[in-house]
């Protein structure tokens, strides 16, 4: 028999975002929270992230991924949150009807009062960046390599070329080295590293792994298994300069070339997607364009720190609880507009400007000695100095309505970055 369940909130995905969102919803007074996870265990990607550096904001200390996750997993264990593991959500409608399936219950129909999307993100593949060549075994994304090495205990290759200097790419360069594999080098198309500075130092420099900026992979050789890759310098438009092409023998090409928020379900529910973030447009409570459907974590935008994922999830969990307990009617929203040297801002809109709001944003290009500013209709609400801003590192700014001189109704909020004195 098919089952129908009607929890107050259903959270889709039990990675760092889903765990924190479910807990926040329960803490805000909801007694019937359901947490749905497609994997066999809680924690999402964190259990395979055995390096440290998680939790510097939330816990004020450097934890490993499993440690960070375990805190929330234990909390969920002590709560009465209904956890459905190994359960795949197949469909979500704008009326908040979820269809899921698992081996124990079969097809489940879930009709919650509110939904929180926490599906996370997936990795960009070699094809999405159109690397020419053959399609042999040995071309692998960083997250998949990490799973094989840290969860399954399998080593994908012994001589590795890495394309992309995102955080996972650099962390895996170190991981391969520690396993005794030869990392021939990390190649990055941009003229600056794609990940955090601390990872450049701790993962590459400390292990003498060369980082080749302004380089890309131009060809994958080997019909059955990778035999070599060709690399070349790129010009300002990222076009390879073929005269600089050289062939590097290796048996593995590992890619760390970006993450894409996983919004297939969001699209099924007809949720508005922001082309700048590839995630849902959300308001200050992380509510999407579809009433009662909230979103948090990397499904909204790929955050650089898990701490920010947790924070966004806590906002979403509380927002969903508020929605269920009190109901919510959204007025015409205030637009949040990216200003000078700002690529995008989350949240993209503000429905009720009644509290302090954290704005997370990414800059378009690196800049030194700057002031980041949040202003409402020309009136500065908050500003903060920063020594350096870089595209890989998200910037957080807080602002609230209290700073408004006369408490008038705001029509537009601008977040921008300007040269400091």
């Amino acid at each position: 028999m098919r089952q129908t369940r009607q929890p107050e909130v259903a959270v889709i995905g039990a990675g760092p975002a889903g765990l924190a969102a479910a807990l926040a919803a329960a803490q805000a007074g909801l007694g019937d929270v359901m947490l749905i996870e497609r994997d066999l265990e809680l924690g999402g990607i964190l259990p395979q992230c055995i390096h440290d550096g998680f939790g510097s904001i939330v816990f004020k200390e450097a934890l490993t991924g499993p440690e960070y996750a375990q805190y929330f997993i234990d909390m969920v264990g002590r709560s009465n949150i209904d956890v459905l593991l190994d359960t795949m959500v197949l469909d979500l409608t704008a009326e908040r009807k979820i269809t899921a399936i698992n081996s124990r219950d079969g097809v489940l129909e879930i009709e919650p009062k509110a939904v929180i999307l926490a599906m996370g993100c997936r990795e960009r593949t070699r094809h999405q960046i159109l690397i020419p060549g053959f399609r042999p075994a040995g071309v692998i994304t960083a997250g998949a390599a990490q799973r094989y090495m840290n969860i399954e205990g399998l080593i994908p290759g012994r001589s590795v070329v890495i394309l992309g200097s995102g955080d996972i790419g650099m962390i895996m360069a170190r991981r391969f080295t520690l396993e005794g594999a030869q990392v021939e080098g990390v190649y990055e198309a941009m003229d600056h590293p794609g990940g955090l500075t601390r990872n450049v130092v701790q993962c590459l420099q400390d292990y003498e792994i060369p980082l080749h900026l302004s380089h890309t992979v131009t060809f994958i050789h080997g019909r059955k298994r990778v035999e070599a890759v060709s690399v070349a310098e790129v010009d300002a438009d990222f076009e390879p300069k073929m005269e600089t092409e050289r062939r590097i023998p290796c048996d593995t090409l590992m890619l760390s070339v970006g993450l894409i928020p996983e919004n297939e379900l969001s699209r099924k529910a007809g949720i508005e997607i922001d082309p700048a973030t590839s995630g849902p447009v959300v308001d200050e409570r992380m509510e999407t364009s579809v009433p009662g459907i909230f979103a948090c974590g990397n499904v909204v935008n790929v955050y650089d720190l898990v701490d920010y994922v947790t924070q966004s999830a806590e906002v979403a969990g509380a927002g969903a609880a508020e929605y269920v307990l009190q109901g919510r009617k959204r007025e015409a929203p205030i637009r949040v507009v990216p200003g000078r040297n700002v690529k995008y801002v989350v949240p993209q809109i503000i429905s009720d400007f009644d509290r302090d709001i954290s704005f997370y944003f990414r800059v378009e290009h690196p800049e030194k000695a700057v002031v980041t500013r949040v202003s409402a209709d020309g009136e500065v609400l908050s500003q903060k100095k920063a020594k350096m801003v870089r595209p890989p590192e998200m910037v957080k700014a807080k602002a609230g309505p209290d700073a408004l001189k006369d408490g008038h109704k705001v029509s537009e909020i601008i977040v921008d970055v300007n040269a400091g004195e």
Partner: protein
Amino acid sequence: MQQMEQQSIKRKHDEFSLPLPASAEVVVIGGGVVGCAIARELTRFTPDVVVLEKENDVADAASKANNAMVHSGMGEKKGTLKAHLNVRGNRMYDRFVEGLNVEFKRDGMFIVITPRSLSFPWLRWIPAWLVRQWMRVCLPWVLVAYGRGKGIKGLKRVRRKKLLRLEPNLTPEVISGIYDPNYGRISPYKLTIALAEHAVINGARVCLNTEVMGVRVEDGEVRGVITDRGEIATKRVVNAAGCFADEVARMAGADGFRIHARKGATLLFDKEISTVVNHTISELRVPLAGHSKGGGLMPTIDGPLQLGPTAIEVEDKYDTSVSREEIDWILDRFLYLIPTFPKSSVICAFTGVRAPTEQEDFVIGVSDKVKGFVNAAGTQSPALASAPAIAEMVLGVLQGLGVSRTLREDFDPVRPGKPVFSKLSDAERQKLVEEDPRWGHVICRCEYVTEAEIVNAIHGIIPATTVDAVKRRTRAGMGRCQGGFCGPRVSAILARELGIPVTQVTKDGEGSPLFCCESKDLLKEVV
């Protein structure tokens, strides 16, 4: 998981390579779409058929990497064997796939005429408005008449306004077009697998991982086929070896043609954007550069949209690489037709190698030098569309060589299909989970493939023993993440079902291991 492990039948890896039969009435060399079609047609008359395939799976070369179109014959030169068999094969398709449980849709193709359709140098001597008028009013009728001359029925002229109504994303520069209702879409590898399995159901044996090393010929007659696994005595050999058909013919001393390799690269796009076109669309381009029918925008039967293919002569018959130039060529050529095309949605690029002869025509028939040696060679595109007619023709030849002409009474007309989770209703899904919990365990997130389907593929009639073979049968790993998420899970299921360590699981057979070793093994080597 342990419980499931117990439920599944464990088999030893090498059991999947069938013992080589000592003899056969007919040996078909090559497990591509042509070889498997011939084998299946033969089993209507005799069960004693052996198919030899050197790769680990059928459809592991050009039959897995083409543009998946059942052409009508519009692109073929009148008077060639290719044109004749293409038109005939296309007409035979609905009956050909009957009982195979493979999805086939005949929903036609638009051939559109644009300002760049004609590129004859002398056109510049004619006023541009006149050329345009002629292309708008006359050219569609010329194409219709051209097609009719080759026996292609049902061609219709389509005006610009209608084209843009049916295909709102089409470039406004389009001038006019024709509609060819005969074009069909099918998954070429699913078809090939189904044909092979249907043949096996009816008595044929398909020997994978078996490479032909020679053909025994005595007194000008075929006596046997020598393989790397032993010899099969036979009086009739069908050479359907694709790119390697010339080499096989030479082994028998029946040479007379040369196959040169011509690769074709195709880009595949996320099914999410499939709605940018509603039909298969091809752009008329004359004169055509190179030997391609020009390709087009093709919504595949499984959802994703394909753009391509290219046509590049290559030295190496194994050159399945995609070059930067080919990618640029495809994007430049086809994105013109759909200016708003979201090209960032590409999920895969792949290449197949065509097997044309110097004469660019099929070589089908018995060798005049070696009795009992039948060629089904030169089978470049449109071999997929022509396969039913090629098989019919080869069958006729073999019957001339002594194969029975009486239909078997015990021929089973049906190759049973297996449920496909992604296409089932929730009620059907519920029923299956109740029967077998593995139907509730979704392994591939992008394409919604369950553990049950993967296990079914591994234990299928033609068993899937590699990650790619599982992918071709189930679509696990064929979606937007290209196996990033399901790869580890599929490898684990393969290892469990095949009873091998996961380090021995391969992507596509020997030489393509997914892992080099287990954790810490490399450190031991260093010490």
